[in-house]
């Protein structure tokens, strides 16, 4: 008998009565506000930022002002130049030299300020989102869903993407004496550019 069959047989013999534990309906609780303000407040609570748009700004000028020392600006969107296109980045080792990665998220979640990325946004180089020092995420307010329940119910990406990450602010740690540090091992900063 394989371990698989052994484990399943033991589970069948030992489990509590399934009839006593019916499957509850899918939960949809909580605040249904999907407004920009709720998203921004939640994002900032987790250390994310809004890339500010000054008069006459384009994404390029806003990025230049926010990251004046950036050399390698990698673009994963068709409507922004950058210094290199993600299609030309061939390996994680090459992606590790990126200062700023610009991507477009298919959706965000107002409750938590999270944005979603998958291989579809990263030209299948998933590590690029984590090896870059900073990430700028283009997001449309029409693509913000209210909360975690509505996100899982409404968004098809959870059923289609092989790799799907909800990123909420930059990487962080509080593992040394409880001190919160933003910019742990992944991105040092995450900024939202509203379109």
């Amino acid at each position, binding site marked *: 008998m*394989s*371990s*698989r069959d*052994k*484990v*399943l047989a*033991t*589970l069948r013999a*030992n*489990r*509590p009565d*399934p009839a*006593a*534990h*019916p*499957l*509850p309906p*899918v*939960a949809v*609780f*909580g605040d249904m506000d999907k407004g920009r303000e709720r998203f921004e407040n939640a994002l900032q609570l*987790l*250390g994310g930022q809004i890339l500010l748009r000054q008069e006459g700004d384009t994404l390029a000028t806003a990025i230049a002002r926010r990251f004046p020392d950036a050399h390698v600006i990698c673009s994963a969107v068709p409507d922004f130049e950058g210094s290199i296109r993600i299609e030309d980045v061939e390996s*994680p080792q090459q992606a*590790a030299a990126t200062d700023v990665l610009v991507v477009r998220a298919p959706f965000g979640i107002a409750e*938590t300020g999270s944005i979603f990325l998958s291989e579809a946004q990263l030209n299948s180089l*998933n*590590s690029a989102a*984590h*090896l870059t020092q900073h990430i700028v995420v283009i997001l449309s307010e029409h693509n913000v869903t209210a*909360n*975690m*329940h*509505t996100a*899982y*119910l409404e968004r098809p990406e*959870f*059923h289609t*993407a*092989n*790799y*799907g*990450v*909800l990123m*909420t602010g*930059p*990487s*962080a*740690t*509080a*593992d*040394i*004496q*409880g*001190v919160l*540090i933003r910019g*742990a*091992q*992944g*991105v040092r900063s995450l900024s939202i550019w509203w379109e």
Partner: protein
Amino acid sequence: MSKVKPVNHAKAAEAFLEDAPHLTFHDERLWDMRQKRDQQMHLLPEWQDLRTRASEIKEHTLANLPEYLEQFEANAKKNGIHVHWAADAAEHNRIVGEILEKHNAKSLIKSKSMVTEECDMRAYLEPRGVTVTETDLGERIQQLDDQMPSHIVVPAVHKLVPDVAKIFAKNYHTDPDEKSPQALAESQRMAARPVILSADAGMTGGNFLVAETGTFVVCTNEGNADLSSTVPNLHIATLGIERIVPRMADLGVFVRLLSRSALGSPITQYTTHFRGPQKGGEMHIVLVDNGRSARLGMEEFWTSLKCIRCGACMNTCPVYRRSGGLSYGAVYSGPIGAIIDPTFNERKYSTLPFASTMNGSCTNVCPVKINIHEQLYKWRRVLAEHHELPFVKREIMHMAGRLMGQPTLYRTAINGTEVALSTLPRFVLYNWLNPWGKHRELPHPVKQTFHSWYKENRLKKGKAQ
């Protein structure tokens, strides 16, 4: 196995209590996490509904575990994931070892996984020529210090900045007197990056399995799990079989509860859904039993399998906060550890269910409504029945039982105690037979017991009327 010595939790805790700076920080840091959890709870009017629903989903899933695991396996395979089953720790380690060997992988980077701790995987792989590098900061600190994680969410929470500075100085050649946590975290980032970029394989744990889609979900904060899983082309994930939920939409309930209960943040910085290998990559998942299927058959303890490993019960527990995770001598510490460790080894962990004041706070904060303090009590009964109580505890309970069963004897003893407490010298009252008296003063003797007062005032008057 019957010869194994029980963990001396009380003695280990005593050592922890001696060190005031560490003790104070540990106690306050964990209590702060508990308070942040409370703040998040108060922001959500639906909090109790979420807990109830989470508990119902988990109980339903556990009652239908074989079917959901089969569904998960079928869907994961369809998406190109290799699915393995490990009956115990040894098989888990062998499976991982074989996958690595097949790929000639000598360098493994991994994110935090309690299951790999449970299986003591590093100790198995390293003699076989695999260098295992923990990439989570806290877990890395523990690895370099050759200690088990002391907390399931914050593994190095019992350490202070100077401790980390010393460990990093030895291994990363940084300043042994470094005082800045930021600088220390940065040195971890700089040390980890080249190891990550040159690793042959990556490994993660996981928080949830989704039967409906064959997805597994990893919730982390540092970004190291996403680096470990996306940089190398080989990704191995290891999860306990109880981690499953039926539907993708059920994740909403659990993701909303997990980080709020753990750290008091609305969500972890990264919530990653793996449904299949990345382009050019290979993905394996090991489903680990290691005692879980047997636990499912324990009528009074099976609901401990609902646990989502948030650590809220640890943060709130006064005993855990003042004794430290390492004093439990087990991979899982705190209240949840005390009710699941005895299922791994009843004798070795026989002392742990006694490491509780029975205040019930663990049960109150548990996001999936495990009746932890009731299970602690039930374990005490089981251990007493199985003769796993230590000598002093057993004899005292035995004497107390006799005493309380006979009113005349009890009253004589109580009167005697009053005399004893007020007249006996300290060394008679405070010694190894009275562990309660360590760090505590015995109560002041009362002038009169309730019984003798009642006899004098009410009983006599009653008769007179």
